[in-house]
């Protein structure tokens, strides 16, 4: 491994600019309520088609990190979380803003986000090098069970109905069977359309599910008179950062705050990294879990909920530690832990990467370069966040939601065909947009479908190869130790999903009785 070459690639001015540009775009999109890191990545993936692998990766990782951070601005100043994970930040951030400490709250959030991200990159670097020998012991059986694990865990996210989460996942698997059979060259369900021989193109499909569907939903809400991007403009009047108001005063030491909060940030970053590795846990669970841990470890737990800086630091450090954690299963196993990593994996595949165990073994330079980009992105969050947070807060007020809606629809559909130049792919983007919109309206989660669509071909290949190699016997899936551990986790996830669903139902019933 040539460390000088890796350092040269990381420090390449074009790559650094792309990471920072992506980071800025992610922050802006994340700061707009209703839009997320997923949307930011889906919108910019088409622009990476013509790039080389490393610049494309630099841009996408910058967007990922920036998008995770951006939501805190609208969460604190508009009281509308940019992403759901920011709801935990609001618990103590909003009371801080209300007592005139808006700048302090945003500074703590920004610095904690950046530092939390940097800690998680260091942990990822240690983990990915030590996990590589273990991954290489996996065979087709383990990979099959691992894909089942990845899909089932995501499907159990649907707390309203586990059945609906599973239906969404199975529908994704069904759609993934379209195209040439992976074992014998027989076309399946292509209806004689030559374009369908290669199956549904993953990136246009994901752009449709997460970008075009969101555009449809925003248009519908705006057309019927609702807030298109979930922005309650009246809420902004409660803050002291609306246009024309006095600028946020800085009467505190940023460094002093961070030194005082160092253990909270470190603990939360470790929690965020670990929960990022677990598929489906993601930034929401990480934020709330680290918040409760910060409260448990605090000498003054009674201050939580009333504007405790530890609350803001804990949630933001955990939230921004998730991307590096989520990259571990994505790069080493090819299993995306959430929607953003699913789109990232799709984009990596388009660029010629094949994330998985061999990728980790054969491409250590790329892995280390990615970590360097993540490090730059997190430093970028600190610099860009501290410099631009006031201007970004004002930008949220200026952009009309209808323009956002039009941009999402136009760029989402165009993004569908920008790679291959085939209008067929734009049709895929719109069709999957309609599917995503219909599923959202009928209460079926879209995320399991997207993960299953991505993992389906691998799952089928591993499953059938294993059966063929073992003369049709299923025993090998239940006799290998790693398989058994993974099956146990699958069963535990299903059990936990069922229990969560029952608890949510009984809580709803209790609330209705009280009403």
């Amino acid at each position, binding site marked *: 491994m040539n460390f000088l070459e890796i350092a040269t690639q990381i420090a390449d001015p074009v790559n650094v600019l792309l990471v920072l540009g992506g980071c800025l775009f992610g922050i802006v999109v994340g700061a707009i309520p209703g839009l997320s890191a997923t949307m930011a990545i889906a919108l910019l993936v088409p*622009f990476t088609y013509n790039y080389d692998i490393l610049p494309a990766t630099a841009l996408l990782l910058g967007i990922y990190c920036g998008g995770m951070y951006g939501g805190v601005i609208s969460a604190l100043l508009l009281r509308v979380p940019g992403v759901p994970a920011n709801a935990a930040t609001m618990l103590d951030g909003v009371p801080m803003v209300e007592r005139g400490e808006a700048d302090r709250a945003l500074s703590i959030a920004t610095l904690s986000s950046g530092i939390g991200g940097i800690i998680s990159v260091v942990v990822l670097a240690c983990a990915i090098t030590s996990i590589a020998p273990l991954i290489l012991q996996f065979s087709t059986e383990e990979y099959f069970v691992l894909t089942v694990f990845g899909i089932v865990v995501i499907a159990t996210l649907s707390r309203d*109905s586990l059945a609906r989460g599973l*239906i969404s996942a*199975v529908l994704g698997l069904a759609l993934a069977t379209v195209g040439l059979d992976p*074992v014998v060259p027989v076309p399946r369900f292509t209806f004689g359309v030559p374009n369908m021989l290669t199956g549904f193109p993953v990136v246009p499909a994901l752009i449709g599910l997460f970008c075009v569907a969101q555009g449809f939903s925003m248009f519908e809400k705006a*057309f019927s008179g609702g807030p298109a991007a979930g922005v309650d403009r009246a809420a902004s009047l409660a803050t002291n950062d609306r246009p024309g108001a006095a600028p946020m005063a800085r009467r505190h030491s940023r460094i002093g705050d961070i030194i005082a909060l160092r253990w909270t940030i470190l603990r939360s970053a470790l929690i965020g990294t670990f929960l990022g590795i677990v598929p489906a846990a993601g930034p929401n669970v990480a934020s709330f879990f680290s918040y409760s841990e910060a409260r448990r470890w605090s000498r003054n737990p009674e201050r939580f909920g009333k504007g405790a800086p530890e609350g803001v630091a804990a949630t933001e450090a955990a939230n921004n530690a998730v991307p590096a954690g989520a990259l571990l299963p994505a790069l080493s196993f090819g299993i995306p832990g959430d929607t953003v990593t699913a789109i990232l994996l799709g984009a990596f595949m388009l660029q010629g990467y094949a994330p998985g165990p061999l990728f980790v073994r054969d491409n250590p330079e790329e892995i280390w370069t990615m970590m360097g980009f993540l490090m730059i992105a997190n430093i970028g969050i600190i610099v860009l966040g501290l410099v631009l947070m006031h201007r970004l807060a004002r930008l949220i007020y200026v952009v009309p939601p209808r*323009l956002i809606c039009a941009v999402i629809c136009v760029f989402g559909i165009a993004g569908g065909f920008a790679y291959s130049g085939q209008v067929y792919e734009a049709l895929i983007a719109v069709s999957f947009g309609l599917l995503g919109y219909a599923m959202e309206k009928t209460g079926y989660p879209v995320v399991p479908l997207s993960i299953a669509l991505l993992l389906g071909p691998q799952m089928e290949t591993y499953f059938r190869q294993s059966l063929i190699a073992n003369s049709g016997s299923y025993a090998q899936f239940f006799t290998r130790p790693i398989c058994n551990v993974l099956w146990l986790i699958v069963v535990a996830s299903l059990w936990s999903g069922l229990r969560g669903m029952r608890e949510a139902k009984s809580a709803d019933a209790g609330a209705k009785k009280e009403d």
Partner: protein
Amino acid sequence: MITRALPAVAFIGFGGWLWLASGRLPMADMGPRGPAFFPRIVAIALVACALWDLLGTAMRSAVVGSPAPGDTLRSRLGAVIVITLSFLYIPGMSWIGYFPATAVYAGAILWMLARSASPGAGIQRVVLETTGLLFTAWLLFDALLGAWLPAGRLFGG
């Protein structure tokens, strides 16, 4: 109850179709080596999950009775309009070219949203926003990316 159960019934139907269509594939009866093996497993799983969902919907219907909030006739009309426009936009690109089709598509979206927010909304603002959006699309897709954009059969593209 019927409206809520419809998706589950549709999934059962889709699962049934997947099973039957898999059976019609060449080499369908070759076990794990055949192309029908995995789709058939998926079909069984889909039908089983959809039946579970249907059962759950039937049990929930005794408790929940009100329609989804915000699901008004106007919002449904909005959804139909934007989806129809999006599906028309694609053949539109092939016929009149990317930029004219985008101008019509984005202009229609912006105009309808402007009118729904304020019936007296000026057309000048919509034209300005559409022009800005077109310029951005040209800058990003054509000038920077060099992406292939349909010129339109009408103009000999």
